[in-house]
């Protein structure tokens, strides 16, 4: 007789747990108050004044760009945390059997999903400014806007994840006379999670790509950096290109990580 051991689920495997823990640590550092917004981005090196691309200037912008990048990442992470949680409640609301709840939630989700985040950011900022006694930092407004915007996407991912669980699985649960709680927690959710995680990862990356829009509400991130350097030095090519480089520096590895995670936690279907 073989020794009996439980199936090691994806969340018990070191290859999943270690990166997740690392990410959480990195997250805490980034989100902590230690990471502050830069007020001005003034390059130490001036460009040579020609119209052509100045490599020296370009390279010297790098550390300055990183400071903007970190703020953009921070806003993304805070916003995404909000999105994950809020999205869950939106998904519950939309699935609800009560029309009075599910219908408005659906309408709100569709509305937010199909309008530009940029306009939403302006709207939230205007709303905050119009309301007595509330002041929010631009980065908070950015995180809020991102969070609400992507919560609607996350809620759809949750819904798709649950729907992706094969109908036969629910039927097997009924045939075994499992109760609703057991059916959800032991049968449906464990199978839905691997389907949801990659989508969430992709939305995290998408949120990061939208975060530079914060410049419109004055958050001092990656694009604000480029704008300021341009206004200061009247040179546009180098700051925007290096902003692009900084961007890919984060988004490409992140995309790669998400794809790996996706492979790790997927298992053979029956």
């Amino acid at each position, binding site marked *: 007789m*073989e020794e009996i051991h439980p*199936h090691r689920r994806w969340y018990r495997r070191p290859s999943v747990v270690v990166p997740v823990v690392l990410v959480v640590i990195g997250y805490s550092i980034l989100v902590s108050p230690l990471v502050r917004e830069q007020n001005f981005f003034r390059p130490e090196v001036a460009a040579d004044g020609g119209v052509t691309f100045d490599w020296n200037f370009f390279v010297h912008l790098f550390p300055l760009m990183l400071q903007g990048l970190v703020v953009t990442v921070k806003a993304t992470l805070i916003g995404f945390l909000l999105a994950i949680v809020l999205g869950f409640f939106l998904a519950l609301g939309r699935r609800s059997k009560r029309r009075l709840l599910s219908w408005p939630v659906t309408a709100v989700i569709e509305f937010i999903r199909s309008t530009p985040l940029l306009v939403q950011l302006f709207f939230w900022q205007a709303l905050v400014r119009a309301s007595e006694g509330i002041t929010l930092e631009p980065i908070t407004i950015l995180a809020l806007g991102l969070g609400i915007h992507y919560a609607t996407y996350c809620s759809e991912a949750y819904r798709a994840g649950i729907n992706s669980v094969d109908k036969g699985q629910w039927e*097997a649960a009924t045939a075994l006379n499992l109760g609703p709680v*057991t059916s959800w927690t032991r049968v449906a959710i464990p*199978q839905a999670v691997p389907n949801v995680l990659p989508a969430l990862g992709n939305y995290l990356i998408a949120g990061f790509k939208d975060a530079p829009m914060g410049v419109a509400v004055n958050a001092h991130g990656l694009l604000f950096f480029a704008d300021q350097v341009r206004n200061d030095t009247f040179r546009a090519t180098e700051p925007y290109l290096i902003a692009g480089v900084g961007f890919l520096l984060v988004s490409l590895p992140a995309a790669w990580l998400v794809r790996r995670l996706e492979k790790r936690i997927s298992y053979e279907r*029956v």
Partner: protein
Amino acid sequence: MSVSETTTARDISSKGAAGVRMRGVTKAFGQNVVLRDLDLEVAPGEKVVVIGPSGSGKTTILRTTMTLERIDAGTIEVGGRHLYHESVNGKLRPAREKHIREVRSDIGMVFQHFNLFPHMTALENIMLAPMKVHGKSRQEAQALGVELLDKVGLAHAVNQTPGQLSGGQKQRVAIARSLACEPKVMLFDEVTSALDPELVGEVLNVLRDIAEEGRTTMMLVTHEMGFAREMADRVLMFDGGQIIESGPPAEVLGSPQHERTKAFLGAVKSH
């Protein structure tokens, strides 16, 4: 068209078995009436094989008994208790979820496509219901699971996940999982038709074992006529949502009375 059938039901008085009684069961999907005013009695311990052409409602009759589809009219009794109804002050009322769940604990079903839980090992698949539904301890459930896997010839597969098993092995685990709930009525819906031809035998052997123990009432949809002939107490021929012929296998399969039965059997055997 419907043949009245109660006479051929053999009565096996076996402890713990339960019969099934359907009266006027009707089930429609939209315009498509799949079961028409169906009467059917299955005695406790009886082994009934259901045959019939595609779309005749064979699967539907099992699924309504398993409460996977609700019926539109009629009643179903399992082990003498109404499945979809409760009697309140002597009158039948639609049953509440709690009542349905209670009666359902007597019924088990095995599916064509196994429906094993892919994120659990074979053993965990079997242990889930005993622990969560019957309140067994982990030790008890484990002992039961190992015993059942032994019984279906898969002692070595305790730790394997469904993804690591062949089709025949998966189906045997699914049968063991169903047995773990100790159902009094077991429903089998074409449990071998998703398998490679050489793997069919191993699953039929397990079914044969269960049938030979004799305790459990079995309703089996299958196209394996040889197997039906050998183990069935009674064969029901379905067409258009009704039972058009019913009797011992030798009669129904050997000298069918009804034209459609002849045509169907001819089509299945002819090649």
